[in-house]
């Protein structure tokens, strides 16, 4: 038992759990048939490609992009502070930019088909409506998010100034 744990690197129950997971995935592939996951005519419209693609796009594209955006915002704010000392803010604006930016990104990620007008034909066939309003609505929502954040930031700054 101890020798097993030393070689394997975990409790035997761990191996049993792994066995369960692989067997279940194997059974899924067996019942569905491997051809279900692969489209021979248009490779990128395969279930398998989208499954792996979802991980790759999140881990190697989206995560680095938003991490980079956040780091740029942070260093950008520091640079502005250094260059324009009279703008020296007693409360960092960082989170007042982060929060509405995240809200904007999140709503775009969830609702982009309507916003960019992708799938218009099936949308109209299903609903009898067009996708026209969504871009405007999303922009208005974004404006509200940034606007409200700006108001709260301004209110906090003025409160602080009055106190000091």
């Amino acid at each position: 038992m101890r020798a097993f744990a030393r070689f394997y690197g975990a409790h035997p129950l761990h191996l049993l759990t792994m066995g369960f997971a692989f067997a279940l995935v194997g059974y899924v592939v067996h019942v569905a048939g491997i051809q279900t996951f692969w489209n021979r005519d248009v490779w990128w419209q395969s279930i398998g490609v989208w499954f792996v693609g979802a991980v790759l796009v999140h881990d190697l594209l989206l995560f680095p992009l938003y991490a980079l955006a956040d780091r740029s915002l942070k260093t950008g704010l520091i640079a502005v502070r250094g260059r324009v000392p009279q703008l020296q803010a007693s409360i960092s604006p960082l989170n007042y930019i982060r929060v509405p930016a995240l809200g904007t990104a999140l709503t775009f990620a969830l609702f982009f088909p309507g916003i960019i007008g992708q799938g218009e034909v099936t949308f109209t066939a299903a609903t009898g409506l067009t996708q026209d309003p969504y871009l405007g609505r999303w922009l208005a929502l974004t404006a509200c998010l940034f606007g409200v954040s700006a108001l709260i930031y301004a209110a906090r700054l003025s409160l602080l100034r009055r106190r000091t």
Partner: protein
Amino acid sequence: MTTRARARSARFRSPLRGPWFTSILGAVLLVGLPIVTVTGLLSYIAYGPQFGQAMPADVGWLRLPQFDWPTDPAWLYRLTQGLHVGLGLVLIPIVLAKLWSVIPKLFSTPPVRSPAQALERLTLIALVGGILFEIVTGILNIQYDYIFGFSFYTAHYWGAWVFIAGFVSHACLKTPLMIRTLRGRSLMQVLQEKQFEQESGTSDLIADDPSEPTISRRGALALVGGGALFVGILTVGQTTGGFLRNAALLLPRGRSYGDGPNDFQVNRTAVAAQISEKDTGADWTLDLTGGSTPTILSREELLRMPQHTAVLPIACVEGWSTTQTWTGVRLRDLASLAGVANLVSAQVTSIEENGPFRQGELQSNQVLHPDSLLALKVNGVDLSADHGYPARIIVPALPGVRNTKWVRSIEFRRV
């Protein structure tokens, strides 16, 4: 510390990351994701797999035990599917935060330290790939964006089972650690005080060289929770209807069609289904078969039969629903008229020739329920073309798309 390990810690420097932060998000998902999963599997049953009309048709043992989908309460599918889609969307910010919290592990070096870890990393593909794949296909489907090209039903169903494999094994392995970690720090205290200091311990989630904190622990939780709440506000109205529907700003089912009796959400227009006025005009008749002789009824004859009115929701697989007042002939009256007793099921066929839902089979409880109708009117007026004129099926708790529109014939099947 090796150079490589130092390179890693320099890359991931947030002082917020740590086992407690990951565990609290994990705890929320441990409760929420099973609800989303089970309601999804229930939807498969609601479609009627015993008639071969759930997709994918052949799933081996990969389904809940068979039972006849109930007709009571009438809001059952509205609830289960509203939860499936609504909660699924609400959990997205939490899933993303959870992935953010553990991302240093993806790049940890050396990538594999033991056979156990190698296997576990492979199952994480099922877990992470599964959840992301389900999110992406689900999001696209509720907005009618079929850019992926494959069958949504097939993909979402098999994706779910791969996810279940990843999720169950991950939960088995990590729940004890999660509980231990959560016991180490009081959530109440996190919410009451502004905690900025890093978590302590040996976890590789904790940055060796942390950057300046920019948000407190409770601030981060508020951000993630606020994101979930924000998505909830933008979503819930498509299921509840009423005033809240206006808040579903960005969803296809947040829109108003007007104030008229037929101005409610359409699923598949008459134009899309290629229903012509010739098919639905004065010559239209309903064929009832399954009895000793076929019965043919005109719309006038149907209107002369006893009419029943029922307030029923129509709830779609995409999570939206709307409640309307339907009037028409009870399906069980039509079955008696056709001379069919000991009914086991009824097959309804539409005028529509091409759609995947042009035909559907109803269980006996769905035919015999007193509120199950061949509806001729809605809210006191004739159905509009988009809502299925001259006649449509409306059955309590039946998935929306299975309430066949533009009905041509009903075949009652007996024992």
